[in-house]
């Protein structure tokens, strides 16, 4: 990757958006690398876990008759928003899925906006988004089989002539979900890398912040929302909302 960037004249100008190898590990006779993606994932996971522990302590200590503090208020607002989002799409099944959807929303959101804090966004690595897509695929079909038993499979052959298209359509779901997230975050990362390479050093301190607001904050929030929304639509399509 590095030599290719030099050949394309991108590394000389300082443009930098590739995944970096940080450390080499030999595992079962194979050479694997610790990359910037792993660092980003670790930071995001640690932030989420620490936040969860702090909030849990605060909520357990607070009494119903007290006025809630700053943090508890913000968390209550966020949870209410997430609950309403799940309830608006999934209806009666919302209780079963809100934990999963909220978790994936917070994870993807933090991953997307981690570009603001100098990390390379983990979701700009296809390995991460494809894993998320495959998990969603498994959840869709587990719940479909649980709800409809054999009807889940026979519905694929409802118009017999269209069955190949139906089957391909099922396998296109995780691909399009993961490629959408990856493409959006990656395009933001590439644009920011090119702009940082283009501008001379004294200007890069203030000017790109406007673009960070669009490419990291706005686009990241929209894509986290869209990923959760589409997962919910696909799941409730299989299990029915009545």
């Amino acid at each position, binding site marked *: *990757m590095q030599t290719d960037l030099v050949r394309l004249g991108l590394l000389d100008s300082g443009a930098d958006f590739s995944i970096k190898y940080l450390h080499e590990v030999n595992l079962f006779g194979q050479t694997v690398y610790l990359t910037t993606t792993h660092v980003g994932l670790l930071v995001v996971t640690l932030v989420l876990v620490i936040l969860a522990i702090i909030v849990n302590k605060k909520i357990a200590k607070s009494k119903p008759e007290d006025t809630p503090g700053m943090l508890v208020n913000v968390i209550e607002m966020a949870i209410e928003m997430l609950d309403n989002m799940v309830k608006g799409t999934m209806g009666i099944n919302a209780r079963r899925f809100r934990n999963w959807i909220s978790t994936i929303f917070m994870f993807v959101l933090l991953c997307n906006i981690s570009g603001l804090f100098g990390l390379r966004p983990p979701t700009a690595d296809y390995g991460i988004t494809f894993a998320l897509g495959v998990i969603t695929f498994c959840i869709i079909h587990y719940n479909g089989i649980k709800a409809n038993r054999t009807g889940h499979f026979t519905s694929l052959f409802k118009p017999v002539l269209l069955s190949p298209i139906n089957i391909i359509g099922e396998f296109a779901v995780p691909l399009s979900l993961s490629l959408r997230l990856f493409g959006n975050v990656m*395009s933001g990362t590439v644009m920011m890398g090119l702009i940082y390479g283009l501008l001379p050093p004294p200007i890069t301190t203030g000017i790109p912040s406007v673009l960070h607001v669009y490419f990291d904050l706005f686009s990241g929030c929209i894509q986290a929302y869209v990923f959760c929304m589409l997962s919910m639509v696909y799941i409730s399509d299989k299990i029915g909302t009545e």
Partner: protein
Amino acid sequence: MSGQDFIYGMSAVGAGLAMIAGLGPGIGQGIAAGHAAAAVGRNPGAKSDVTSTMLLGQAVAETTGLYGFAVAIILMFVKPFN
């Protein structure tokens, strides 16, 4: 100019051509946003529903453009034609 350099140059041209795929989603998202604005103008009470539906539709419409982007990235950095 060696054959290898020619392949790199043509890969860059192909990546640029692949990004023409951005044209379609741009038009599609603009149409969706325009109709959503009209819907909010007609019924301002349904603003949040209209907005979420519009965002979902735009995200789906964006997929084809992102396929073009993926092809461009693959042509530039993965180099399938070596």
